[in-house]
Each structure stands twice: as structure tokens, then as C-alpha cells.
């Protein structure tokens, strides 16, 4: 086994250890240590990705050399390495560009606690991507929930705390359902490692007796994960949690936290249950309906919203709809499209949130559109980022979002029954996206009735972070073919 195979475990352990270490430092040093740790994770995951792309294979890493079914395992191929690399990158850049806001919004003696939570969040996200054990996944889902909640409430005012408690309750309902479903699965098969469960399920399916309990299990699990990742009818908590948190928190929550659960769900579908079995179930049709409705209703809600961060949050609801539609096609192409959409959204949405944070701090911490007129002149780099992010979200060619929509519609061709609905919903949703993003762009670039368009002083970290976001988005828009190739390769070794 190559040395790089140790890296996933190293990353998880280093971030966990980092969360202990940052609790003992002051805010500034906590930021430095945290940046160092996440950069280290980025380098490790990237080298793993390079290794796995040049030597395509799937590695099963036994912790402590205990073989299945006794030991715990991580298991990964190119797809997991790519997703983990993206997560590390987005986390790093969101934290750099949101640094000024973090130090303003969080009480000065608690800044290190914020970074403790960020480290825990990173650790749990990586664990969700890499783990091969369902119960380990459950434990890290809960760690993820708690640290995400703490990141939301970092501002510690009434508004964020009430948003947090709504988020926490919804998340706990979701994890309750998830725990119930994995316990039922354990009861049915006697295993907790994903591959062993799959082997047993194949035998059970051959006898044909257990379709009904299995459908219930998949249903519970899907609803649980949908609640945690804000699929349409369960999305009510999202706009408040993402709208009121500090800039970096909103970026991380919408860019990464929601995605960790979806990666886990895809893993359960492909690796635990198996695509052939899942695609026979009606559960996917329910997810499909929710996804299509989310695509449209999320966009409609966003049009009516006057608070810039809440508008971007509602746009996330629509984007979650896209991802779930990709999953619910039940074909390999659909899963590739969904994961690619996850990557695109992880690059774009945090950039939009950071840009919105930049507009707000250049306009006296106001978030409503009538107070944001001309904000792009006060903070030009945020303006550029907002233009690129909006064009990408609308799906203009040469931007990353176009690739995501293109692959979703090609993937829809693999499922003739759902094809027309997907294409129609995509068309409607694209038009609606254009309506509110262009409205937002027109507002931040309008000079009408605005006296104050002088450039504000922008902190160095914000400029660096935004430049990295812009470069990454443009690069993704130009080279998305390569990313999709890696994902298709990864699906073979998933």
C-alpha cells in the first residue's frame, strides 16, 4: 500500500488534534494554526488525488490492520479524493476571506473557540467523505451538526441563536431518522461496514423477502439526509441560519456542510444498497419530485427576498434541488452530474456569500438591497466576484455553472421517464435564477441616487481570499471537462 493511503486518516486526526490545540491559543494564533492545518490537509488530499488519478484504483485502508468485519476502515478512490480536496480548498479560502468579519463579529475572547469548531467541522466533513463504516458516519454526522450549529451562533445575538435552535432541531430530527435507519440495516444484515452490508443485501435480495423493510430503511435515511441538507420541504431553517451568521459561517455552511451529507447519501446509495436496487425503489421518485419543486420554489422565494444573504441562501435551496434531481435519476451519469454540481456549488456559493459580506461591510453592515446600491463601487473585488458567481449560477457558458447544468441535462437523457420534467424545470429555474441575480447585480452596480461610491479600505486577507475564489471559479469554468473525467473515473472505483 502506498504511503499516500495514510493521508485521509492523517487529515482526520490532524484536524481533531488541531481543535484541541486551538482551544489553548489566542484568536490570532488560532487563526494561524487553523490556516496551517487546513493547508496541510489540502496538500495531502491533493497529493492523494494526483496519485489516484495517475494510478486509478480504490484503496481500502484498515485502521490498525484489523480486517473486516472487526476493524474500522476508510475507503477511497479518485472521487473521494477530489471532493475532499475541494472541501479543504473552499474551507481555507472562505476562512481567509471571512477573517476580518470573524474577528469583528465574534467576541474577542471566543475567537479561538470559533476555530475549534471549524477544525471539528473540517474533521467531520473529511470523515464523512472517507469513512467506510456507517456507525462512524453517524458519529461524525453528529459532530458535524454540533460544530455547524456553533459556527452559526458565533455572533451570539438573539437572532442567530434562534436561527441556530431551528437548525439544530431540524438537524436532530434528521440524525434521529438516520440513526434509526442504520440500526435497522444493522439488524437486517449484521454488519456496519458498507461493503459487508452490500454483500449481505445482495443475498437477501436474491431471496426477495426483504424489499419492504429495505424500502423503509432507504426512505428513512433519505428523508433524514434531506432534512439535514435542506431539500425543498425541509428548507425553512436554511435562510435564517445562513442569512444571519457571520460571513465565513454562511460560506462554509452552504458550500460544505450541506454537501457532506449528500456525499454520504450518495455513498449509501451506491456502495451500501447498490444502484441496481435503489433505482427500483419509489423513494427516488419522491426525492425527484421534491428536487424539482425545490428548484422552482427556492428560486421564487429568492426573487421575493430583499436581504442579500437570505436571497443567496434561497438560491442554495434551488441548487440543492438540482443536486437531488441528479441523484434521483438513479443512473451513474446522474450521480456524476450530482457530484459535479456539488463541486461547482461549493466553489461558487461561498464566493457569493463572501462578496455579499464585503458589500455589507463597505455599506455600514447593511444587508438589504435598498441600502446596498452602489456597493460594488465601494468594494470592487467583491463586485467582480459577485458578477462571476451570478453568471455561473445562472449558467452562462464559460462559467462553471454552465457545465453543471449541461451535465445534469445530459444525465437526464439516461432516464427517459424523468427527462422532460428535468429539462423543463431546468429551463424555468434558469430563467428565475437570471431574474434575481441580474436584479441583485443591477442594484450593487447602480449609481442612481447614490452619493457615496468612494472605495473603502479592504483588508489584505479579504483581497487574497476573493482573488483565490475568482481564479478557482474561472479555472473550473474553463477546465470542467477534466473534473468530470475524474468524477467518471471515480464512479468506477466508488
Amino acid at each position, binding site marked *: 500500500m502506498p504511503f499516500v493511503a495514510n493521508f485521509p486518516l492523517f487529515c482526520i486526526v490532524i484536524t481533531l488534534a488541531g481543535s484541541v490545540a486551538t482551544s489553548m491559543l489566542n484568536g490570532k494564533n488560532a487563526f494561524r494554526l487553523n490556516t496551517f492545518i487546513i493547508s496541510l490537509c489540502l496538500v495531502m488530499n491533493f497529493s492523494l488525488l494526483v496519485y489516484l488519478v495517475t494510478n486509478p484504483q480504490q484503496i481500502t485502508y484498515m485502521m490498525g490492520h484489523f480486517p473486516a468485519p472487526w476493524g474500522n476502515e476508510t475507503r477511497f478512490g479518485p472521487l473521494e479524493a477530489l471532493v475532499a480536496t475541494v472541501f479543504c480548498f473552499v474551507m481555507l479560502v472562505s476562512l481567509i476571506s471571512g477573517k476580518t468579519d470573524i474577528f469583528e463579529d465574534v467576541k474577542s475572547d471566543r475567537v479561538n473557540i470559533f476555530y475549534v469548531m471549524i477544525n471539528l467541522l473540517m474533521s467531520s466533513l473529511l470523515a464523512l467523505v472517507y469513512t467506510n463504516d456507517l*456507525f462512524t458516519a453517524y458519529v461524525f454526522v453528529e459532530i458535524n451538526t454540533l460544530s455547524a450549529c*456553533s459556527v452559526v451562533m458565533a455572533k451570539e445575538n*438573539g437572532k442567530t*441563536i*434562534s436561527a441556530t435552535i431551528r437548525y439544530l432541531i431540524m438537524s436532530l430530527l434528521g440524525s434521529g431518522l438516520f440513526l434509526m435507519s442504520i*440500526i435497522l440495516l444493522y439488524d437486517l444484515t449484521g454488519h456496519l461496514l458498507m461493503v459487508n452490508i452490500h454483500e449481505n443485501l445482495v443475498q437477501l435480495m436474491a431471496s426477495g423477502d426483504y424489499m419492504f423493510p429495505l424500502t423503509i430503511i432507504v426512505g428513512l435515511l433519505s428523508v433524514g439526509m434531506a432534512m439535514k441538507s435542506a431539500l425543498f420541504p425541509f428548507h425553512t431553517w436554511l435562510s435564517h441560519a445562513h442569512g444571519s451568521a457571520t460571513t465565513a459561517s454562511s460560506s462554509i455552511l452552504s458550500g460544505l456542510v450541506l454537501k457532506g451529507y449528500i456525499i454520504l447519501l450518495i455513498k449509501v446509495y451506491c456502495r451500501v444498497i447498490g444502484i441496481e436496487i435503489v433505482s427500483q425503489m419509489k423513494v427516488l421518485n419522491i426525492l425527484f419530485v421534491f428536487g424539482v419543486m425545490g428548484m422552482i420554489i427556492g428560486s421564487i422565494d429568492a426573487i421575493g427576498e430583499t*436581504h442579500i444573504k437570505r436571497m443567496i441562501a434561497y438560491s442554495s435551496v434551488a441548487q440543492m434541488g438540482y443536486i437531488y434531481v441528479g441523484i434521483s435519476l438513479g443512473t451513474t451519469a446522474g450521480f456524476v452530474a450530482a457530484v459535479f454540481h456539488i463541486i461547482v456549488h461549493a466553489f461558487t456559493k461561498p464566493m457569493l456569500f463572501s462578496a455579499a459580506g464585503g458589500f455589507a461591510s463597505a455599506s455600514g453592515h447593511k444587508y438589504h438591497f435598498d441600502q446596498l446600491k452602489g456597493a460594488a463601487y465601494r468594494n470592487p473585488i467583491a463586485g467582480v466576484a459577485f458578477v462571476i458567481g451570478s453568471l455561473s449560477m445562472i449558467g452562462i457558458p464559460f462559467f462553471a455553472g454552465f457545465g453543471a447544468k449541461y451535465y445534469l441535462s445530459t444525465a437526464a437523457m439516461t432516464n427517459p421517464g424523468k427527462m422532460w420534467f428535468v429539462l423543463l424545470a431546468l429551463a424555468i429555474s434558469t430563467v428565475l435564477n437570471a431574474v434575481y441575480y441580474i436584479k441583485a447585480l443591477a442594484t450593487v452596480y447602480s449609481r442612481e441616487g447614490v452619493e457615496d461610491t468612494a472605495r473603502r479600505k479592504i483588508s489584505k486577507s479579504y483581497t487574497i481570499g476573493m482573488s483565490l475564489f475568482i481564479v478557482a471559479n474561472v479555472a473550473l469554468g474553463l477546465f470542467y471537462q477534466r473534473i468530470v473525467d475524474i468524477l467518471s473515473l471515480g464512479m468506477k472505483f466508488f
Partner: protein
Amino acid sequence: MGPNLLNNYFETAAMILFGIGFTTLFLQPNLIKKVIGLNIMDSAIYLFLAAKGYIDGRLAPIVVNGVTDMETYINPIPSGLVLTGIVVGVSVTAVSLSLIQKLYKEYHTLDMDEILTKVSKEGDH
């Protein structure tokens, strides 16, 4: 269906309790009662696991008098899962209670609906 439910009365009870806990956590406006619902829901899962892990007439998985025969003991993994679950449940409860305390200090009520009306009255900036 009926006799099966009666024979597996532990599991049946666990599912009913899970339903009660879930709906309490979901629909109850009082925040403390929500946390109680959460705990009922979690305990129902532990009951289910413990009931599934127990085999009639076998001992707890602790080797006594040198008997190492597999047939003597129950499988220790479900009990281990219950323990892990309890740890997770305790931390989640602690976090939610401390959040509720903060909210109560801010808004002087435990009713979620009232809190939300007060929050929306505050307006946003």
C-alpha cells in the same frame, strides 16, 4: 402482522416511543419539551438496539470462570453502539439546553412561536 407485533413487543414499543419522541421534537412549541422529545426518541433507538442484541438465556459478554464458548454470551456490539449513542445523545442535549438558556435570557419565554415573532419584530439590519 398482529402476532408478530405482539411477539416482538420490545421492538413494537421502541417504534411507538420513537414516533412519540419524533413528533414531540417536531411539533411541540415548548423548547424544553422538544428536548424531552429528543431524549425519548434517542432512548427508543437504544431500547430497540438492546432488545435486538439480547438473546434469551445468554450472559453479558464478560468472560467468567474461563468459559469462552461463543454460545454462552450475547453479541457485545449492539451494547457498544448503545453506549456510543448515549454519549452522542448527552452532548446534543447539553448543547440544546445551553442554547435554550441563552434564548430564555434574551426573550424571556420558552415558546418557539413567541420567540420567532419577537425575532421578526426586531427587524434585521
